[in-house]
């Protein structure tokens, strides 16, 4: 699914004044949702969308480390300035949807965007 289709489903818009059209055609293959950094870090996110209510700079960090395609903030939340700066630097598009987490997830799931694998080969656990 293209990023622009995801945005349409979520009624999402750019979370700050950036023009995100260049990334509109990026492919989103799955979605992960959480408000806990450690949860997010247990996901394996290449090409995944991150849905979250967290708006601080560390959300961008973990999205960078896990190669998320984009971040969408739920409940109309907007990213903090430090977060915007880092996202710009790392080229991670940021969106905001007025929907609550439950409905945002529900809509994407109903549109058949899969949950994505939880883990890559984990040797110990």
């Amino acid at each position, binding site marked *: 699914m293209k990023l622009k289709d995801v945005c349409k489903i979520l009624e999402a818009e750019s979370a700050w004044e950036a023009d995100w059209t260049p990334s509109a055609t990026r492919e989103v293959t799955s979605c992960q949702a959480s408000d806990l*950094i450690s949860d997010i870090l247990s996901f394996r996110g290449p090409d995944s969308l991150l849905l979250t209510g967290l708006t601080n700079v560390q959300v961008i*960090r973990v999205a960078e480390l896990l190669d998320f395609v984009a971040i969408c903030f739920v409940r109309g939340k907007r990213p903090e300035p430090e977060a915007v700066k880092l996202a710009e630097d790392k080229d991670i598009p940021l969106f905001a949807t007025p929907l609550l987490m439950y409905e945002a997830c529900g809509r994407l799931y109903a549109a058949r965007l899969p949950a994505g694998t939880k883990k890559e080969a984990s040797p110990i656990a």
Partner: protein
Amino acid sequence: MPELEITKIQELIYELRVGDVMHKDVVTVMPSTPVSKLREILRDNRISGTPVVENGRLVGIISVEDFIKWLGEGSPGCAVADRMTRNVIAVCADEPLIQAINKLERLGFGRLPVLKRGTEEVVGILTRGDSIAGLLKKLDVDYRQAETRHARSSHIFEDIVADRSSLIFEYDVAGGSFDRAGASASGLKTSLMRLGINPQTVRRAAIATYEAEMNLMFFTNGGLITAIIESNSIRLEVTDDGPGIENVDQAMRPGFSTAPDWVRELGFGAGMGLHNIKTCADRMRLDSTVGVGTRLAVEIFVGGQT
């Protein structure tokens, strides 16, 4: 394969911004500049038009066509202000290049002044030639980057003649600096990718480093992260002389956390960090002495495992 190549080019086109390819040292004229001076200005700078700027603001644009028209009218004495186009169409430096190219095409213009977003300050000028040259240059750069990366990644350890060799990266982590924390993990990730280590392995190393880094940031006054990269493993050593951990087994348990409320409000403190490190590691060891400090050692095998 051809399809892939095209997507790569399309991606590049969408990625490039006007600011990446524009001419930065723009020649400008003032509204009061006599039109008779234009000949030298255009000729000496080998340009076919120039923005007209007054008090740092873009007020018009004048081109060689305007100049020729003026010549045809018998070179009457007048200033640039009388001859320039006033309703200038400009682009912003952060605009995608593709949009600007479309504008050039649609309007049939030879050049567009580039403004800093939200201002009327001219920061550059974009011509048709620039856009294509910029694209080609970028393609070339990417191509070469890919080549050197390939060369490096496959040979870095093979090229070294030694019984054992390793690369050591050190990262200083400050305690309490929330905004900057994570930079070590990010830096390590970038470096490991450049070494050509497979992305899944890189992610595991980055996550382990990140969790350790955040623990240093929240629970200590800072510490040191050392990454030792060898041909078949990545070892991480994280040391601090902070308060130490009373019961290491308990700390390792998923869900155990002593994080205060302000930490939890930021999305941390689930008590999952050390557990995450363990799931990323092939080997992990945590030693701590209260009042002395903590030492975490992690080993991730490169190749094979992933």
